[in-house]
């Protein structure tokens, strides 16, 4: 009872990976429980911006009790811009880990796609590191040559890149990369913008592939209370008693066939 709370954590490092993309390592008890696909509620030190920012976990270091987040600065005067200005040694308030995470066990003995696009790329890294499967195919979509985390992905699977401008890998999106390389899978895990997830969901349905997608929505509480971040579900949800699921609490990862996107 009342055993979880907002934690003040120390920033271990902060690095700019590409234009507007930052990587922050923090020392936190949340690392002990964290799973790939979960997220943190990160609070700014500015009382004018009172809602937490839901940021996905990119890497988990349980030995040193550290978590890494890789996040995008969403604009001028935003909370994420404030995070990006913080330096090593400063402290930050977080709550987490939150959400369900990816069901890793479904990959055992299978051929797998791990797909990330845009700022949905970071959570795929820890997923790739922990995944135990027969064939680990990482299909990562970027806008341009700012292929952040590329070297780390290369160490953790067979990497296929797509870029919108064609500067690296397949020109186009992650679906184009699948077609160009004639890739096959038994299970798909994906995180990225809704149009990408919609295309992946459709692809998985056509080929009868088990598919898990991580959704995103504006959140307030992050713990399932405010009902701000719902998505539509195919069937009536047991908790809401309507066709809505809470992305923060019931997700962010859903079986693609469960949700309408």
């Amino acid at each position: 009872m009342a055993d979880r709370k907002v934690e003040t954590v120390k920033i271990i490092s902060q690095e700019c990976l590409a234009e507007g993309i930052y990587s922050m390592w923090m020392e936190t008890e949340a690392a002990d429980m964290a799973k790939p696909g979960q997220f943190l509620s990160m609070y700014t030190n500015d009382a004018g911006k009172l809602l937490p920012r839901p940021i996905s976990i990119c890497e988990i270091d349980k030995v040193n009790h550290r978590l890494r987040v890789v996040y995008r600065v969403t604009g001028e005067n935003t909370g994420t811009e404030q995070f990006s200005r913080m330096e090593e040694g400063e402290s930050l308030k977080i709550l987490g880990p939150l959400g369900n995470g990816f069901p890793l066990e479904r990959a055992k003995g299978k051929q797998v796609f791990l797909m990330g696009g845009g700022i949905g790329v970071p959570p795929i890294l820890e997923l790739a590191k922990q995944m135990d499967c027969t064939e680990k195919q990482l299909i990562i979509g970027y806008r341009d040559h700012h292929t952040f985390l590329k070297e780390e992905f290369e160490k953790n699977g067979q990497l296929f890149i797509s870029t919108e401008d064609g500067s690296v890998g397949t020109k186009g999106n992650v679906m184009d990369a699948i077609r160009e390389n004639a890739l096959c899978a038994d299970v798909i895990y994906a995180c990225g913008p809704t149009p990408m997830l919609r295309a992946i969901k459709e692809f998985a349905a056509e080929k009868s592939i088990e598919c898990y997608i991580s959704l995103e929505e504006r959140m307030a509480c992050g713990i399932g209370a405010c009902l701000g971040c719902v998505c539509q579900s195919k069937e009536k949800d047991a908790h809401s008693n309507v066709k809505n699921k809470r992305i923060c609490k019931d997700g962010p990862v859903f079986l693609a066939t469960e949700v309408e996107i």
Partner: protein
Amino acid sequence: MDVGKKAENAVDMRVNIAGIVWKNPVTTASGTFGSGKEFAEFVDLNKLGAVTTKGVANIPWAGNPTPRIAETYGGMMNAVGLQNPGIDLFCERDIPFLRQYDTKIIVNVCGKSEKDYCEVAERLSHEDVDMLEINISCPNVKEGGIAFGQNSKAAEHITKAVKRYAKQPVIMKLSPNVTSISEMAKAVEAGGADAVSLINTITGMKIDIHRRQFVIANKTGGVSGPAIHPIAVRMVYEAAHAVKLPIIGMGGIANAQDAVEMILAGADAVSVGTANFRNPAVTMEIAAGIESYMKKYGFACVSDMVGIVD
């Protein structure tokens, strides 16, 4: 009273709201605390005067499309649209959960018509809950809600109707989106309300200048959080001077100082809402902070502070 001579240590945190004694003056603002279960990992619910649950209707409601949430400076805006599981599941699941705790249960009731409100009030009359809060002030649903809360005749009428079915004391939750909060408070008092709570959110709008579209799918939403606190204090003060009913004050309370301010303005108890999203444990901290304030200034009981700044 001579506040300086009151006992230094023992303070009585209890408050009596329409005959229901809460252990302290702190409850949760409806819609920000789920049914209590979502927060039970973060808050010892036994330490709250009451838990006010998210609005419940006679049947399940799916609520509004997303995005439902936007941040505003010093606050936020929501248009959740009263998504709720309906009274049947609520009675079966949420009331028994809350009953495990030593706190009062206030059920917020929403509806689209008089009949909806009355059906829920009647159903709850057979349930083990302590008070009903009637939401006639939600700005985010097209029918019902605020339609009853912006017209004094309609507010008086719906109060009378609900009172015919309710067994528990009835709190009418008022909207700030009115010309005169005093008139609305008087109307529900005339209708037989046992208490009033105020303020609900203030209708607002936010536009994304890069996409040139509304941030919230509903176009408008209810603004809450510290930014609206001074408005809430003023309205609580006005309501306290207009009616004899107990007042549950809310609107942007983020810490114990804000809560005390509301009590000094005339609130008998306070609700904490948006602040739960920044610090899930804030309700407990506010209850403890009010107690510290009372000790520091020698108030023996909460009622000694109510409305003393006049």
